[in-house]
């Protein structure tokens, strides 16, 4: 009891730091994750390159989403989750005890599988992140900048105070991307952002991803291999919680080193 109180009273330590090689934004080392007693990620080692698009592919249930959510510690919201190993972001260990996951999430934005705008107005959806992070910005400016970046400005500029739920599915998803951009993150995680959208909306989002990589590091999960080939520079292939192969997208799709990868890519998979 007394020890606990003393522990509580300690000054916060600074976070552990290592230096990552240039061009590497984030890196996992020996990272494993359990949901209760089932091991969903097994000893993952992967490097995310700065200002590049990294795609994670693999059959469903292989742990793509789980891995993605590790980069902003969204798995913390699930009670039964336990992790081992480290993930470094800009040299900081994001799984260190002293790291605040709220700070991580500010640096690492996320776009979800289903569009999930808040039931507020379009403008308030975008401004929300600035509000909760006490950012000192002009609301109108942020809204305009983010909507333009997300290629949505022209479509919605006259209806900024309308409820976001009145937008179409594709527009909603671009709004969610714009919302993620508002907090000026460095990395953007996307979990199958197009799976709920039609082909035209999908094409728009893919163009957008191309634009985004100039300023951001993007990690995208997809079950659509053509999409991975189209948008990404690097590709990671996962199977049953393991990272089977990771490399340049061209290499993965043209001459994969692992037999398992080749089987999946050529569609000869069960």
């Amino acid at each position, binding site marked *: 009891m007394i020890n606990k109180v003393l522990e509580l009273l300690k000054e916060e330590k600074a976070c552990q730091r290592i230096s990552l090689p240039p061009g590497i934004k984030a890196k996992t080392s020996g990272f494993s994750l359990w949901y209760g007693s089932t091991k969903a990620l097994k000893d993952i080692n992967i490097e995310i390159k700065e200002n590049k698009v990294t795609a994670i592919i693999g059959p469903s249930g292989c742990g793509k989403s789980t891995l993605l959510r590790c980069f902003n510690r969204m798995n913390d919201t699930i009670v039964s989750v336990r992790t081992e190993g480290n993930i470094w972001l800009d040299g900081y260990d994001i799984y260190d005890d002293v790291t605040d996951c709220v700070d991580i999430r500010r640096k690492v934005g996320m776009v979800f599988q*289903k569009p*999930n705008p808040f039931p507020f107005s379009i403008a308030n959806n975008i401004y929300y992140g600035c509000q909760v992070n006490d950012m000192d910005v002009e609301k109108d400016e942020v809204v305009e900048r983010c909507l333009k970046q997300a290629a949505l400005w022209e479509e919605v500029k006259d209806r900024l105070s309308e409820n976001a739920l009145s937008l179409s599915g594709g527009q909603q998803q671009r709004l969610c991307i714009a919302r993620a951009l508002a907090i000026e993150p460095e990395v953007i995680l996307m979990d199958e952002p197009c799976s709920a959208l039609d082909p035209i909306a999908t094409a728009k989002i893919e163009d957008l991803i191309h634009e985004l990589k100039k300023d951001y590091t993007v990690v995208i999960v997809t079950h659509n291999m053509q999409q991975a080939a189209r948008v990404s520079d690097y590709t990671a292939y996962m199977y049953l919680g393991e990272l089977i192969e990771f490399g340049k997208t061209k290499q993965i799709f043209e001459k994969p080193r692992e037999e398992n990868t080749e089987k999946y890519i050529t569609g000869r998979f069960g």
Partner: protein
Amino acid sequence: MVSRRVKDKLVHLTFFGIAALSVVIISFIFIFLFIRAYPAIDTFGTGLLGSEWNVSRNKFGLLPAMYGSVFVAVGALAVAVPLGLGAAIYLSEIAPERVRMILKPLIELLAGIPSIVYGFIGAILLGRYLYDTFGMRGVNSFLAAMLVLGIMALPIIVSMSDDAMKAVPKDLKDASLALGATRWQTIRKVTIPAAISGITSAVIMGMGRAIGETMAVMLIIGSVMKMPVPFFNVFDTGNTLTALIAVQMGESHGIIINVLFTAGIMLFTIVAVMSVISDILQTRTTEKFEGKR
């Protein structure tokens, strides 16, 4: 086999008949209350809305009781809403699953305590405590009624608000967390606004419960047919529609009984309207999230 199809049809009709019984009951309640109330309405007309209740002068103004009902209910909500919202937030957003499994039934148990027991305890313990503390004229007061009704309205407010907040989809909360909001910011700025119509409906139901509560109020309100003086004086005694009916029914004859039925109709109408509003708000919450996503 004709009989099998015919039988199925008959069964369908039977169940429809049983279900329609609720509608019949509601209409019957209204009709029969009205039949008994009619002589009073016919005799006194708008005099029933007056503020003077004097049996010897044949004045039966129900205004003091109406005011008392609303006054008590508002006071009860002032107690129950902040507490109940806090408790609901705890249950739906903070409590670990195991704690929730224990607390939710406990709160339901609070709802199960008979109102006469609340009234008895309120009068014997709370009434005496307030009497000693504030040096009032007697143990009965609006304040005691408000406190007791507040406690009685708590469970319904807690459990309905809890349901409303649980109905907010997890992916909205996740979206907020992913933007760097703390869990508290998420609760305050996403969960509560998204659940607001459900929470409002909970508050309305709580108010309906407070207005319709009889036995507890009857024992601690004083049953004096007058307005509190001044009108916001919580230390004064007074009456509510429910207490008026409960106390006077056993002691009165003739036209007063009809007046009491008029009070019953008022009560029934007020609470029915509140149920309907609350119901509309509640379906609106569920539709907002189920229809759209």
